[in-house]
């Protein structure tokens, strides 16, 4: 991959719009060098994408350029409908900037693997409840009937490849495993507007295939580069950021709400009313605003409220409400989260009872599942 990017395009002190940057002669020339006659159509598709996506249109144009150049050098069309690769605008709250992120779809990975000329077969599919019979993690044998149409819920995702030399690999991840993985590694997983919410299957297939290829596949230089730049904001050839990863400073909806409220506060009174709910992550922003408003209101003596974690400042709630919260829990983690709110004996007893019941019912379910799977294998 020729990762020319910003080193080859002169950055200006004032940032142009995405459209203005892509209309520059030197930019057009760079794309023409990589794509030849297909360059104008490719550039048009990027401009079309930016025109239809407000976040992307406002993104740092050089990150859009770098992402587009990466797609061009991988020779993959940038089109969500095709699903090979796309460019997504991404608000980086820690820096207060918007950047473009390059993303590969699972079809993009398949395409790049095929180009190595080493793969006889490669695929990644959903496994439905009516198809799945069992998975042996030791021998890596998936017992599933793919001759029937999948119906009902998707229980897992299977990636498979066979090399020309005969080496083959099958990897199966249950839907739950994908979910746990995404929850652990993708900060945007829980957001309503994340791709995980709008297209879980495509994201899951990509995750399983990417993991399979990077661990066991033959990787061409092109494929290695693709793995490196996938889901990244590309600054230049050496510098690549992964804003979706867990350690990135992506805000939850509550944090975002608090941030907007701190910014919008016009008086000390308004700001201080927020103090009991200010999260740790918003502490610095709160203090800065407090300093600013204090300087504008010199007469008032201000006692700086200590920002606390949202969970630590919950007022004591009635037993009736607590009971309903407990009854709404669906996972063990949700029960655990209520421990801090169980401040009296009555609440503790109720929560303890419900947690025990939950654990017992989960154990029953597990026992039932294992009996079922024994039954399935026994039938064969």
């Amino acid at each position, binding site marked *: 991959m020729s990762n020319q990017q910003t080193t080859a395009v002169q950055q200006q002190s004032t940032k142009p719009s995405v459209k203005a940057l892509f209309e520059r002669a030197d930019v057009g020339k760079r794309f023409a060098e990589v794509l030849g006659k297909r360059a104008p159509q490719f550039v*048009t598709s990027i401009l079309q994408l930016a*025109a239809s996506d*407000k976040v992307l249109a406002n993104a740092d144009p050089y990150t859009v350029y770098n992402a587009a150049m990466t797609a061009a050098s991988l020779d993959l069309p940038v089109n969500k409908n095709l699903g090979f690769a796309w460019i997504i605008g991404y608000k980086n709250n820690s820096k207060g900037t918007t950047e473009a992120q390059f993303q590969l779809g699972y079809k993009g990975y398949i395409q790049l693997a095929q180009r190595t000329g080493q793969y006889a077969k490669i695929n990644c599919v959903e496994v439905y409840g009516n198809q799945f019979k069992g998975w042996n993690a030791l021998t890596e044998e998936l017992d599933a009937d793919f001759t029937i149409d999948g119906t009902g819920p998707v229980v897992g995702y299977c990636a498979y490849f066979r090399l020309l030399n005969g080496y083959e690999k099958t990897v199966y991840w249950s839907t739950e495993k994908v979910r746990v993985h995404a929850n652990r590694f993708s900060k945007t997983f829980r957001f309503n507007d994340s791709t995980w*919410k709008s297209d879980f299957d495509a994201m899951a297939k990509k995750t399983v295939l990417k993991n399979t290829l990077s661990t066991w596949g033959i990787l061409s230089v092109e494929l290695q580069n693709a793995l490196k730049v996938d889901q990244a904001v590309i600054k230049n050839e050496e510098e690549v950021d992964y804003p979706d990863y867990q350690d990135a400073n992506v805000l939850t*909806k509550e944090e975002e709400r608090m941030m*907007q409220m701190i910014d919008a506060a016009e008086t000390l009174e308004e700001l201080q009313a927020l103090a009991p709910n200010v999260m740790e992550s918003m502490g610095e922003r709160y203090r800065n605003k407090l300093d600013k408003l204090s300087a504008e209101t010199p007469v008032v003596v201000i006692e700086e409220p200590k920002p606390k974690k949202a969970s630590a400042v919950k007022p004591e709630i*009635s037993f009736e409400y607590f009971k309903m919260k407990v009854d709404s829990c669906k996972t063990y983690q949700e029960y655990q989260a209520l421990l801090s709110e169980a401040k009296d004996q009555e609440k503790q007893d109720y929560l303890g009872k419900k947690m025990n019941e939950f654990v017992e019912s989960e154990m029953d379910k597990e026992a039932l599942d294992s009996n079922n799977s024994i039954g399935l294998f026994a039938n064969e």
Partner: protein
Amino acid sequence: MNNANEFLFRCSSLGKIMTNPQGKGIREKILDAEALIDKLSAEVAVAKPTLKTTQNKLAKIELLKSDLENLKARKDEVNLSLTCRNYLIDLFVETKYGRKKDLFSKYLEKGLLVEDDSLTLLSLTEKVFFEKNNVRLTNDYVSGEPDTYIGQDIFRASVVYDTKSSWDLFTFNHSKYDDDINQDYYWQLQGYSDLTGAPLMKLAYCLVDTPESLINAEMQKLWHKLGQPQEDFQPYYDGCRAIQKALTYDDIPKSERIKIFKIDRDEDAIERMHQRVLECRHYMNQTFFNHEIKRENQKSSEGVS
């Protein structure tokens, strides 16, 4: 489910069951008939019995008395509106067969996706940091999940809020400038008041940006409509820009994108709501479960013999 005796109605559906039937109810008809009989009887008492008009009045009184008997025999019959009865049929089908009538719509989807954004707009307007309530509340009649509230906990809330995220600028402004509050939302909020005891409810219509996934879906529809053209096809390009503009609102001040209606708790309304829930359960038992109840009774009587 063998009967509807403990069936809880969702607050969001109260508007449907609270619609009144067209025309007079049986109790009103009984009162009318009794009043008319009294009136005619009084007229007959002072009139010459041989007159034809007196004879006619006497015949009419007899007729009315017969009607009255029939009406009195039916006085406990539940008189529900057509809207309500249709809704109860749908509800029964959904419950019995586990199928939903309205599965997806872009309006519902937007409402779910932008719930947090609407809450942020509400927070900025009310200058109160709101957190989403995720607890479903129930009492003997209804169940519901108010969006948020002000108070130590939801049972000690001074104000309960519900947000409605409009699909676009046009639907938002229709809600904004409509003087009468939507009856479905009125009853939904009375339901929340019943569940929480809150004396005041606020309904907030919010206009926030449509999520990218829904904008893309609209663009894809356009793409198919135009015969799947190349992306640089000018009408498609212009159409996409128009869709983007129609569904995002950064250029409109936040204060113009929210409208809050206040609704006071109404004890009479809540009482009527309880009564109607009981009537609906009775109707459901009579209409849908009667057959099953009869069969059960038959089984038990066979068991006895």
